């Protein structure tokens, strides 16, 4: 079988680099071109030093991009929607890793992103990119919009509870702790090492845009409220979501085990991590670095109906490039784990 010819638009960022790392070792993929306007003509390893000797590819300008089977778009927010017609002419299939086509409701988009969408007519064409939720749609899709990292960890953690209507709909509180790579590769005053090191920085206590994705995917036709906060900590990769929900009924932990087993028992990239003893009793982001896993654990408060769900991912993998490759595998009928087998490192 001939290989699928893909190109990456915007490959000099962290997400683009991570995606290239995966694609270079995918047995069914040929990476045709990678673009960067800032590094046109430069070797990949100039920007992604981990890829030295893995490839001698050079970045090209987006103006030089040739037709291919699939384009991965790793552009900053608000770029894909303004150039989507050009990209559609170049490839019959697109996976967009930006936020531009994640939301289906135009009003919600304008509410959360604060500006008009350039191509609202296309919002319905993109499948929302969490494979565990939209696997069958992805198998037939031409356009996929990869999910946000905070949204991915939060949604995967809580989806079985909302789907089974087990939690109060207006009392969910989610706090995520995130690493610095979530902020991208552009330096700013806040990323200057003396300022960034050792921080516990409440960078988005309210109104985080990824909340809109959570509402979209977990509403099931009802009005729900999700109170979401994000805190940047001293970590490069990784994300831990601590989700507080309130159970409608007095379910016990055995019941919750059953709910998660039914939802995720056959999922290749979701693991329930809830041990009664040991060091890693609950999900730990550092063990997931470079992997496509989402680890989920939970603990019921014995003195109330609160259930704490803990969900961890690598934000650049299951929260971005890994999840996009998982979607790619589904689109083309490849085994879902192809190119995503890395089990992580320990100790790390």
């Amino acid at each position, binding site marked *: 079988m001939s290989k699928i010819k893909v190109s990456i638009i915007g490959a000099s960022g962290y997400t683009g680099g991570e995606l290239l790392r995966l694609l270079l070792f995918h047995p069914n993929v040929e990476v045709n071109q990678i673009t960067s306007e800032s590094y046109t003509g430069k070797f990949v390893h100039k920007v992604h030093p981990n890829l030295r000797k893995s490839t001698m590819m050079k970045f090209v300008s987006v103006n030089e991009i040739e037709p291919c089977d699939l384009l991965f778009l790793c552009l900053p927010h608000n770029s894909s929607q303004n150039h989507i017609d050009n990209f559609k002419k170049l490839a019959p299939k697109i996976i967009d890793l930006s936020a531009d086509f994640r939301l289906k409701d135009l009003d919600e988009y304008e509410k959360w992103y604060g500006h008009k969408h350039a191509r609202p007519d296309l919002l319905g064409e993109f499948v929302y990119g969490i494979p565990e939720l939209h696997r069958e749609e992805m198998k037939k899709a031409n356009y996929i919009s990869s999910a946000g990292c905070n949204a991915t960890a939060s949604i995967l953690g809580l989806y079985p509870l909302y789907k089974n209507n087990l939690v109060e709909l207006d009392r969910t509180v989610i706090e995520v702790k995130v690493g610095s790579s979530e902020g991208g590769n552009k330096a700013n005053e806040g990323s200057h090492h003396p300022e960034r090191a050792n921080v516990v920085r409440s960078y988005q206590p309210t109104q985080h845009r990824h909340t809109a994705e959570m509402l979209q995917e977990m509403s099931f036709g009802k009005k729900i409220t999700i109170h979401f906060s994000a805190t940047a900590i001293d970590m490069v990769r990784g994300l831990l979501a601590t989700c507080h929900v309130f159970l409608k009924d007095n379910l016990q932990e055995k019941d919750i085990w059953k709910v998660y087993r039914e939802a995720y028992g056959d999922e290749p990239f979701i693991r*329930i991590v809830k041990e*009664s003893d040991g060091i890693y009793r609950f999900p730990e982001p550092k063990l997931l670095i470079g992997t496509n896993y989402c680890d989920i654990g939970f603990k019921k408060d014995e003195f109330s109906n609160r259930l704490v769900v803990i969900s961890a991912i690598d934000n650049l993998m299951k929260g971005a490039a890994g999840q996009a490759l998982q979607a790619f595998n589904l689109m083309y009928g490849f085994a879902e784990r192809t190119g995503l087998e890395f089990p992580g490192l320990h100790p790390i």
Partner: protein
Amino acid sequence: MKTECPVCSAQIELAKDAVQGELIECSDCGTELEVVTVNPPKVQEAPQEEEDWGE
């Protein structure tokens, strides 16, 4: 010989040569379990010392 973990309800397969009093571990929740009886297969949570996490 199948039974159920009393903590997380995972299916537990007892080895053919399992004996009463043997300690096994649940593959899902990691709980240490004691084989109470082999026929019928029955396990219970093994007593454990509380961990000190320095809190």
